[in-house]
Each structure stands twice: as structure tokens, then as C-alpha cells.
């Protein structure tokens, strides 16, 4: 019976609305007070039934819920034969609840879309050699699965046969399909656009990258800030408190009308719901744009950010140094470059790789008597010549002759922020190369956006020499640049900023900067290993896409603002209602309920605006 009535809540709402309509038509047009009264009595009883059941269920577990307040208020109105009030209040309460459900679903839709992308079934190889469709929960590590065109990859695994193109947008945010052949890694939640593959499961369920992303978002949408926990504790005592106050008012004034009006006005609603609604909509917007925000605490901190600290290599720069400029001081260019390539081939120094990449196809010579000079370069014998490859310090040590023009070139390349590789053959400088790490395209514009969004300081910290770091800072318009920084220097730097009361975000590669990432209020890992990035970051950028940073910051600011607006709406409405019940004569139960439901809808609709938030400039 209880269940039946609760299940028919929508029909009851409509019916009681119609009855109220009939009542007023008969009173105002037909002048028939009898129909008026009986319609309202019926509407009150109908409408009160589901509310009273909910109240009863709450009381049984010793909770004074809103339903309890409303039920008592309606009973009171009924007792003093104010059927107009009792009917309208129950109707508004039910109708309001219906609208809340609809609008709340909307604010939660963005996250729901994400979680619904989770694979549900898999084709698993069974004993007789055939593939059988099973639920994804039944797949274990080591199972062999078949993925057909158009299907979702059910788990993280490796391709063991077949070929195809996979759209990995759900993991990386990159919508260009990726070719997968034997031994390629595949990820749960990605879609096989063409081809057929068989895979072996490496990680299943919540352990998959997609599973982790979903878990993160689901936890984030319900994570609570200190303020929210306070509101929760407060509301536990607030509702019973309202009941007590109304009772005291009735005891002293003997005015039932006033007492039940207080019951309705005191209903909390907008206050409890306002902040979670902003939170879920903001996090949902982020998820749609490849930004995972780990909860409302992160939103609060990130929105009040003072300083953003960046690691240089791999964050602001691509992390893949390239030879930018070359000066040759010999007619025998081809042969000298071949010597150089032969020497560098034996080194795994990043600059060496850049040199080899630059020289390209060449003839290789045998290299003998190789000697690595720490902090200098390499000395070796090639084709009967003595080669010295390295920096200026090495050249000086080797007493290499450097001409007037070469000195000029060296100075100019250094000023442009190059790392230098000099090559001397038999004590004479033959080749000068300037190597630079390319700045990521678009980073400059993104940094300017961050500045416009109110980040006061943009700082770069790097292990590179100060000259190079200064140059990057100048080119990108950063406020501060510090070179020669070891990981522990970086975290000390962040500690110092925090000691000055600043809120700091650190953007790094997530591997060797983990102390700084952990220390900063907001850690953002740019590592290409999505797992590391997900675990260590407070804000996860899908595909380590730097360009999402400004949107992330703008979004957290908008979300934090939205939460504040909702708190103001909620508290403001309660204050206005209470003041008007004390100081005005137009306030009654129905208007109180209307305003109460209206304020709940107002905070939900306000939160919903966040779903369509876009960075404007």
C-alpha cells in the first residue's frame, strides 16, 4: 500500500492540482462554497498521503525530515479547517519535488554520460574455442576476448591477433583513431572503429584506466568541502530545531496558524542542495572537456590560486630537443658530420640524439679510444683523427683553436638560449651546433589566458642553466624563472611560497617532480602515463593537454562563484521569509511553500548554468 501510493506520486500531484483548480473555479465563478471546500479537503488528503508516508518512514529511523515538518503543518491547517492552505501546500511540495528530480537529473547528466560509456559486455573465449557474450564483471585477467568493429574494448589489454583502428577519445581526449596491431596496448572504454582484434585482458574493472577515471569522477561529484560538512551537521539539528521552535511559539501564542507557518518556512532545502548541485555540474562540465577535478576542495583551492609553478622540460617545452642552428668552419662538411655522427651514436645523451637526428643518413666510421669527460663531452679517435665533441669547457681543456668569427657565433647562439655542441677535429673547431628544446605550440596564449583569469605569478623552475630558463620565461611572458633547480630545490621553493600565504599550483611531468606535486595545493601531472597522472594529480588533464588548463581554471572559478551564489540564495530566502512572518501580514503557509520550492529550483537552475560554461577569451 505504502509503495503503491509513493509510486503514484506524479498522478497524485496532477490530480490534486486539478482538484485545487476545480475548487477555485467553483468559488470564484460558480460561487459554490460547498464544492470549493470538499475539493480542497480531497486534494489535501490525497496530497498529504505520500508525504505522510515518507514522514512515517523517517520517524521510524529517528530522523526529523522535511516530510515530517510538512505533514505536521498540513495536519495543523486541517485541524483549524484551513483547507485552502493544506491543499496548496501539499500540492506545491509534491510538484516542487517533481521539478527537482527533473532538473537534478539534468545537472547530473554530464557525469552520467561519462559513466555510461563504460563497457558492459565482452566476448570471451570459452573452452570449446568459441566466443561467448558475458558481462564485463565476469572477465578475469588473462582471459582472451574478441572485439568486433564498432564495439567497445571491455578491458585494458594487449592485442594478440588482428588489426584495427581504435578511437581512444574516452581515455586521451584525442579523437583521431590509433592503429592497433599485434602487441599494441588497448584500453577499456575505447571504441574499435574498424577491423577485428583478439586481446588478452591485463587489467579489468576498476583497475583499468577508464575504471579509474570513472571512480575518480564519481567520488569527486560527492566529495564534500569543510563548509558542506558543516552545513550537513547543521541541518541534522536544524530541522528538529524548527519543530521545537514552532511548538514553543504555539505554546506561548496559542496561534496555530503562526506555528504551522513557521514549520513550512523553516524547511531547509536550498541550503543543503545548493552546493552539491554546483559541484556536480562543474565537475560534469570538466569531464566533458577532458578535465577531471578531484572534488570540491580542489575546486575551492584552484579557484583562489595565487601562483602557478611550471616545470620546464616536457611541460612548457616539448621535451624533445632539436638542432636549431649550425655553423660549419670547414670545406670538408660531409666528412666531419660523419665523424660527429659516429661519435654521438655511442652516446645516449639527449643532445647527442638531437645531433644524430639532425645529421640523418650518413656513413659511419669506427670509433676508438672513446673517453667521456664528465660535464664536458666526449673525446675519441675516428678515422685517424682526434675528435672532441662537447661544450666550451671541453674545448678549453683541449686547447682548441677558436677563430674570431666562431667566438661571435658562439656568443650569439648562447644568447638565443641554445645549448651548444662544439666539434673539434685535431684541435680545430669545425662545427658549432645550437640545440633548443621547442616550446609547446600554443603555450604562450594559454599562459596569457591564465594571467587574465587572475593568476598573479607564473613561475618556471628547471634544472637547466639560468640563461636557457630566462629565455623561455621571456618568450612566454612568465613572471619569474629559476634555473639549476634540483627536485628538492623545487619543493623548497613551493614551501617558501606557501609560507608567505600563497596558494600554489604545480604543473610537472609527474615522475621526478612528485614531491612538488604532492606539496602544492594543486598538483597537475602532465605525464603521458595516464595512470601516474590520474593518481598524483588534483586536476587531471586528459592526454596531458596543456591547452585545457585555462578552461580548468576558469571553470573552477565559475563553480566556486556558483556555490557562493547558491548559499546566498538559500540563506537569503530563509532570512527574508522569517522576517516577513514576523513583520508582515501577507505571509502565510502557501506563499512560504511557494518561495521555499522556488528557491530550491533557483539553486538547481543556477547550478545548471555551469554545464554550458565556456572560457570566453
Amino acid at each position, binding site marked *: 500500500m505504502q509503495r503503491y501510493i509513493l509510486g503514484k506520486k506524479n498522478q497524485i500531484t496532477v490530480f490534486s492540482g486539478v482538484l485545487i483548480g476545480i475548487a477555485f473555479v467553483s468559488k470564484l465563478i460558480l460561487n459554490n462554497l460547498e464544492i470549493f471546500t470538499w475539493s480542497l479537503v480531497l486534494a489535501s488528503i490525497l496530497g498529504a498521503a505520500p508525504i505522510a508516508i515518507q514522514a512515517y*518512514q523517517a520517524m521510524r*529511523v529517528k530522523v526529523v*525530515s*522535511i516530510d515530517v515538518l510538512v505533514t505536521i503543518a498540513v495536519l495543523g491547517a486541517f485541524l483549524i479547517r484551513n483547507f485552502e492552505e493544506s491543499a496548496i501546500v501539499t500540492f506545491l511540495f509534491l510538484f516542487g519535488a517533481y521539478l*527537482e*528530480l527533473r532538473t537534478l537529473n539534468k545537472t547530473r547528466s554530464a*557525469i552520467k554520460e561519462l559513466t555510461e560509456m563504460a563497457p558492459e559486455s565482452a566476448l570471451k573465449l570459452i573452452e570449446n574455442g568459441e566466443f561467448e557474450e558475458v558481462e564485463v564483471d565476469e572477465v578475469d585477467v588473462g582471459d582472451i576476448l574478441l572485439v568486433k568493429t564498432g564495439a567497445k574494448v571491455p578491458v585494458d589489454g594487449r592485442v594478440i591477433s588482428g588489426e584495427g583502428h581504435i578511437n581512444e577519445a574516452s581515455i586521451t581526449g584525442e579523437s583521431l583513431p590509433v592503429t592497433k596491431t599485434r602487441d599494441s596496448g588497448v584500453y577499456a572504454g575505447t571504441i574499435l572503429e574498424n577491423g577485428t582484434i583478439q586481446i588478452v585482458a591485463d587489467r579489468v574493472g576498476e583497475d583499468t584506466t577508464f575504471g579509474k577515471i570513472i571512480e575518480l569522477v564519481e567520488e569527486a*561529484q*560527492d566529495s564534500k568541502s569543510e563548509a558542506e560538512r558543516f552545513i550537513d551537521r547543521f541541518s541534522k539539528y536544524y530541522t528538529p530545531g524548527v519543530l521545537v521552535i514552532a511548538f514553543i511559539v504555539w505554546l506561548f501564542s496559542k496561534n496555530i496558524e503562526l506555528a504551522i507557518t513557521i514549520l513550512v518556512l523553516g524547511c531547509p*532545502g536550498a541550503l543543503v542542495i545548493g552546493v552539491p548541485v554546483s559541484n556536480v555540474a562543474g565537475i560534469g562540465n570538466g569531464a566533458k572537456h577532458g578535465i577531471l577535478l578531484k572534488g570540491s576542495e580542489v575546486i575551492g583551492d584552484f579557484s583562489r590560486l595565487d601562483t602557478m609553478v611550471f616545470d620546464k622540460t616536457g611541460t612548457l617545452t616539448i621535451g624533445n630537443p632539436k638542432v636549431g642552428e649550425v655553423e660549419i668552419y670547414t670545406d670538408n662538411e660531409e666528412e666531419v658530420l660523419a665523424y660527429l655522427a659516429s661519435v654521438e651514436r655511442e652516446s645516449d645523451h639527449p643532445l647527442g640524439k638531437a645531433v644524430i637526428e639532425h645529421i640523418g643518413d650518413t656513413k659511419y666510421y669506427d670509433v676508438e679510444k672513446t673517453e667521456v669527460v664528465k660535464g664536458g663531452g666526449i673525446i675519441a679517435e675516428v678515422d685517424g683523427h682526434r675528435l672532441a665533441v662537447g661544450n666550451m669547457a671541453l674545448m678549453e681543456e683541449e686547447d682548441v683553436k677558436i677563430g674570431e668569427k666562431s667566438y661571435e657565433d658562439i656568443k650569439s647562439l648562447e644568447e638565443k638560449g641554445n645549448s651548444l655542441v662544439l666539434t673539434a677535429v685535431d684541435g680545430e673547431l669545425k662545427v658549432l651546433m645550437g640545440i633548443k628544446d621547442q616550446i609547446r605550440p600554443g603555450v604562450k596564449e594559454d599562459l596569457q589566458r591564465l594571467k587574465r583569469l587572475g593568476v598573479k605569478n607564473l613561475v618556471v623552475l628547471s634544472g637547466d642553466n639560468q640563461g636557457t630558463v630566462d629565455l623561455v620565461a621571456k618568450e612566454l611572458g612568465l613572471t619569474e624563472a629559476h634555473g639549476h633547480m634540483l627536485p628538492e630545490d623545487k619543493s623548497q621553493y613551493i614551501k617558501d611560497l606557501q609560507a608567505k600565504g600563497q596558494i600554489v599550483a604545480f604543473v610537472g611531468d609527474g615522475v621526478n617532480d612528485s614531491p612538488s606535486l604532492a606539496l602544492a595545493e594543486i598538483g597537475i601531472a602532465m605525464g603521458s602515463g595516464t595512470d601516474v597522472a590520474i593518481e598524483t594529480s588534483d586536476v587531471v588533464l586528459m592526454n596531458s593537454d596543456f591547452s585545457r588548463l585555462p578552461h580548468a581554471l576558469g571553470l573552477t572559478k565559475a563553480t566556486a562563484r556558483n556555490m557562493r551564489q547558491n548559499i546566498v540564495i538559500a540563506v537569503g530566502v530563509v532570512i527574508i521569509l522569517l522576517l516577513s512572518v514576523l513583520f508582515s501580514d501577507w505571509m502565510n503557509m502557501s506563499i512560504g511553500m511557494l518561495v521555499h520550492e522556488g528557491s530550491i529550483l533557483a539553486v538547481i537552475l543556477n547550478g545548471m548554468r555551469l554545464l554550458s560554461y565556456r572560457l570566453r577569451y
Partner: protein
Amino acid sequence: MKQATIQLETLTCPSCMLKIEGAVKSLDGIDVDSINVAFNSSRLKVNFDEDKISVEDIEAAIDKVGYEVKKSRVKAL
């Protein structure tokens, strides 16, 4: 101790959470501190002692206060 994750019907009203928490709290064998009713994901997470209570008992208690249980999963801790 085991952890139950119970997916509920969509939660909309703020006092739902108090009601569900109240319903589960009073059961024997429940780790009261672990009760977490998530509003937006409409989900309850709770640790319980499998010798004293089963996940079905928890579901029944939630059902009794008027909320439908959609799906539940139990994980060893």
C-alpha cells in the same frame, strides 16, 4: 569486514540521505563510521561484518524507509 556498494534510485531530496543513513545505522554489524550516502551518484557505501549481517539485510532496511535498491556489490576489505 566487507564493503557493500549499493546503487539506489535517484536521490533528490536532501533528507533522503539522513533517512537512509538512519535506516542503516541502527542495524547490527554495521561499521557506523563507514556509512557514506552519496547524493549525486545516489549510492551508499558501507562496511559490514559478514558474520552478523548480510547485504540483503541492509537492502531490506533501505527498502523499508522507501527507497528502491537497484544493484549492489560486495567487496572484501
